[in-house]
């Protein structure tokens, strides 16, 4: 098990290296002089020189990258000219609310996906299965920002079920404020979850031990809960891990739509205010988050499925 974890960690190193290069290159995509773009047209030459120095723009390309890494080692990823704070503080202040939203959305997503996927798998190739698949094929094309606006109209304005806007004052109030955004994100990811869970359940249903269980006269409910769902959920976890990027993409849009002060709305605001250092850092942090989640899902998979850890 420890060897497995060590091996996985070792595989991550080149990816982290590559991700840092991509993030480093981002600012260099800006047409013209990035320092001028960051500061605006009316910046003084002294200020421009200072930012050029901070970015290492006067150095050869490979030295610029080392410079970037050197700064990164001190947690220095530049500062925001809009918020007047450094990228690190600005981003990590907003991470908890984003993570809460993602976890909440994933939970609601599971609550939606498990019953539908189970029903579709059990009634495979019947009208029920076709109807569920068709419904979720339609769901996949719903733009999340549109769904957010429509749900807000229906459930917050027409029927005053949920609070609208912001993240609330902590505790239950936060949960109440986050329910509608989380539901929107959950519906956004549900087609992928239903599809993956349905096919992994079908695979389990076709396996010999289920046939044996049926032949032995196990009650279908027992079979479903303690055999099918348990074994079907394991591959499902890796699907959830693989699609965490899709989940994060949805979260970013929804944070901005509902005015939730998380990393996603920070990213969009920074893009709109041309706060390049923040865009760069948030992109880097979100990529690290994906890598971390993928590592955790692999480990969870290894723990849940003993066959993996012995490899």
């Amino acid at each position, binding site marked *: 098990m420890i060897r497995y974890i060590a091996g996985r960690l070792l595989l991550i190193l080149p990816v982290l290296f590559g991700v840092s290069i991509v993030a480093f290159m981002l600012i260099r995509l800006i*047409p013209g002089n990035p320092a001028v773009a960051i500061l605006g047209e009316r910046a003084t030459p002294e200020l421009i020189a200072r930012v050029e120095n901070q970015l290492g723009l006067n150095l050869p390309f490979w030295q610029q990258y080392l410079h970037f890494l050197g700064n990164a080692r001190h947690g220095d990823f530049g500062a925001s000219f809009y918020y007047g704070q450094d990228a690190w503080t600005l981003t990590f202040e907003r991470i908890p609310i984003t993570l809460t939203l993602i976890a909440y959305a994933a939970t609601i997503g599971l609550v939606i996906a498990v019953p539908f996927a189970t029903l579709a798998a059990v009634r495979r190739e019947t009208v029920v299965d076709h109807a569920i698949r068709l419904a979720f094929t339609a769901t996949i094309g*719903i*733009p999340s920002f549109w769904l957010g606006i429509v749900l807000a109209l229906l459930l917050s304005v027409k029927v005053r079920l949920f609070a609208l806007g912001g993240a609330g004052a902590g505790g239950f109030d936060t949960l109440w404020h986050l329910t509608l955004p989380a539901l929107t994100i959950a519906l956004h990811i549900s087609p992928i979850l239903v599809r993956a869970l349905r096919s992994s359940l079908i695979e389990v249903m076709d396996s010999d031990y289920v046939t044996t269980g049926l032949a032995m006269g196990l009650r279908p409910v027992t079979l479903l809960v303690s055999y099918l769902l348990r074994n079907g959920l394991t591959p499902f976890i890796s699907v959830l891990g693989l699609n965490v*990027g899709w989940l*994060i*993409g949805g979260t970013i849009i929804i944070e901005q739509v509902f005015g939730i002060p998380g990393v996603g709305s920070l990213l969009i605001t920074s893009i709109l205010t041309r706060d390049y250092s923040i*865009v760069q850092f948030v992109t880097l942090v979100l990529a690290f988050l994906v*890598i971390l989640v993928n590592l955790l899902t692999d480990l969870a998979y290894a723990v849940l499925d003993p066959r993996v850890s012995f490899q």
Partner: protein
Amino acid sequence: MMNAVAAATPAGIVRRGLRAPGRWSLRVGLAGIFAVGALASFAPLVAPYDPTALGLSAALTPPNGAHWFGTDQLGRDIFTRVLYAGRIDLQIGTIGVIIPLIMGVVVGLFAGYYAGWPDALLGRVIDVVTAFPFLVLVLAIVAMLGPGLRNFYIAISLVSWVAYARIVRGESLSVRGRGYILAAKSLGYSDARIMFRHLLPNVIVPALVFGMSDFVLDILAGASLGFFGLGVQPPTAEWGVMIAEGRNFIITAPWVVIFPGVAIIVTSFFVSLVGDSVSDIVRRVRA
């Protein structure tokens, strides 16, 4: 055996798809795509009004006989604008698939055919790009290059080719040792000829199937950028832009937001329907 090999190429899939019984979802999907495409292409002929003609006296009119989908805050006919927007959004989906598809297929063929270090290098690049959430990386690139449709295409091309390269590379790696490739090599055919004439038709189908779902992803991404003011710029009609413009009137005039959203959902639904049925057929042919 011969038949199975032939059937995994695009021509084989088409033949199989047309013959397959009860493939109503494929037919409905194709008919739907055709209808949406025709409505968008012939928008100037079909649409009752000018997409940018202002009619402030008739602003925010609910749907009625003269304005089927109502009018927006500037009195423009929403039905007309939804049709015109379709031209932009279908273009986003098409270009967003074709450029990355070509890039990814070429790179994937090379890596999969030669294996060795080109393949190892591509493997690392794929790992790195897929570590970024798709939408985040597209947004970040557009943020640096500046808003607009052209920069959106650049961003999509830089990000999505990786998905196609991964698919084609995997397929090529498994096919490169097959008899017909070895036969072509022993006949002294050039590598380019083997890659594009013999390998390509046998590895392209999964990439094309992925292209269907990628089309939907691109439309959603393009509309999201339009919604945030980073994609197509007003007054050009684009579904995401229209939703953004109608947002402030959602309580009094929900139709301004509803119809462009429905257009995205309907278009995506037909494309997904075709994508799903084609991937079903492919799975059966291969099984």
